[in-house]
């Protein structure tokens, strides 16, 4: 094994599970696995562009995101236009409701399913930003570089994504509670 190959595997292989975790939530079905393979291919081909000692995880996520974003463009996805006012009102309504959260009503596996459905309901760029910051632990600046967006856009997308997630999770909690209480 060459030094270059060894250095690349040291940087990249530990990140594989995180890449797959995110890819599965950015694209449907079995494509996530192929996208991560493509990420490794492109990353290895361009490994000379990586600055040793810097954030290899963010570097790989930049490549993954560029592949996913290109695919979104090819599928001619249009951003879901959401009314800011309507979203804010739904969030305010959810805040004022006194509902238990899903963790009270669901087991861990069910919570996972509820979270995944809630994530699917987010616009793609919001979902990506939320995953990069809250799950993968990137800073706003790193997420901005990964998604080629200004930091302000990251901040805005993250705020709206968290609000929308809260509304969806609370709605699921209300539905389950109604079921549990026999429709009361």
């Amino acid at each position, binding site marked *: 094994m060459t030094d270059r190959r060894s250095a690349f595997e040291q940087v990249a292989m530990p990140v*594989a599970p995180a890449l*797959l*975790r995110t890819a599965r939530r950015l694209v449907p079905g079995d494509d996530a*696995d192929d996208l991560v393979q493509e990420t490794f291919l492109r990353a290895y081909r361009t490994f000379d562009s990586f600055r040793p000692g810097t954030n290899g995880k963010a570097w790989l996520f930049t490549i993954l995101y560029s592949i996913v974003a290109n695919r979104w463009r090819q599928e001619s996805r249009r951003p879901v236009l959401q009314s800011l006012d309507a979203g804010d009102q739904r969030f305010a309504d*959810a805040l004022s409701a006194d509902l238990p959260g899903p963790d009270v009503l669901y087991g861990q596996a069910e919570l996972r399913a509820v979270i995944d459905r809630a994530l699917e309901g987010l616009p793609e760029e919001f979902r990506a930003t939320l995953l990069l910051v809250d799950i993968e632990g990137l800073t706003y600046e790193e997420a901005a570089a990964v998604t080629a967006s200004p930091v302000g856009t990251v901040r805005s997308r993250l705020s709206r994504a*968290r609000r929308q997630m*809260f509304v969806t*999770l609370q709605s699921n909690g209300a539905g389950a509670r109604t079921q549990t209480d026999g429709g009361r």
Partner: protein
Amino acid sequence: MIDFDRHPTDLLNAALDGRLDAEDRAALNDHLAGCEPCRRELAALEWTRAQLTTAVDVADLPPDFTDRVKSTLDQVDAEGPALAPPAPGATGRRWWWAAAVAAAAAILVVAWAGPWFRPVPVPAAVAADLQAFGVSALPLELATSSPAELEAHLQAANLGFPVRVFDFGMMNLALTGGGVHRVDDERSALMAYRGADGTLVICQMYRGTTADLPETADVRRHNEMDFFVYQEGGASLIFWQEGDVVCVLAATGDVEAAVQLAYAKAIKV
């Protein structure tokens, strides 16, 4: 300093993510002590994040995943170092294709550069953009043959400079589309063209100065303007300055033809 005349809801996420300095955090805490709605909102955001981090755990890799990755890396290793230009008499197309695919992989990375990427010289980056266009791997926000439509799209992007979409119809080059791109970590206006004879041309405009470009021995003077000519990976690249904007035209084919296109489109500012 935070304006606490209104609820600082914009700052709650920043507080949650530890991005406030000590002074602002203390001021926010004072506000929260007397503001129940903001406390509820912060609690809701904390709760939401906790649900996410609890439920979304590290993915199990499929059993053959690591083997597949290593097999892919083995294939790249087997390809060897950068391809040499074709031997005399050999068709150049296969070499062009393979180099373009590799370059397209690179440009998709360069286009979203971060501090973990080594800086790529601008001419090389623009040449990679052209190669990516050649294999349909260059993102074009808007597919259109209308210069006016693309120009309106780019003006709406607020790039900070007036955008001109060059019309090369007289030169038998058809606009295929364009959009906002990046050059040298600056947002750029990108236009892409194809000729009936297979010629590829991309043009970009971005805030910058030609003084930052690598040195080139090929500098042309025309209409009291300097044109900096580079040749990278089979492409000719011509840069020139219009005010505080750098314009670049990258083209396949004959370098002198590309220079003439640049001359035709440059405007002395």
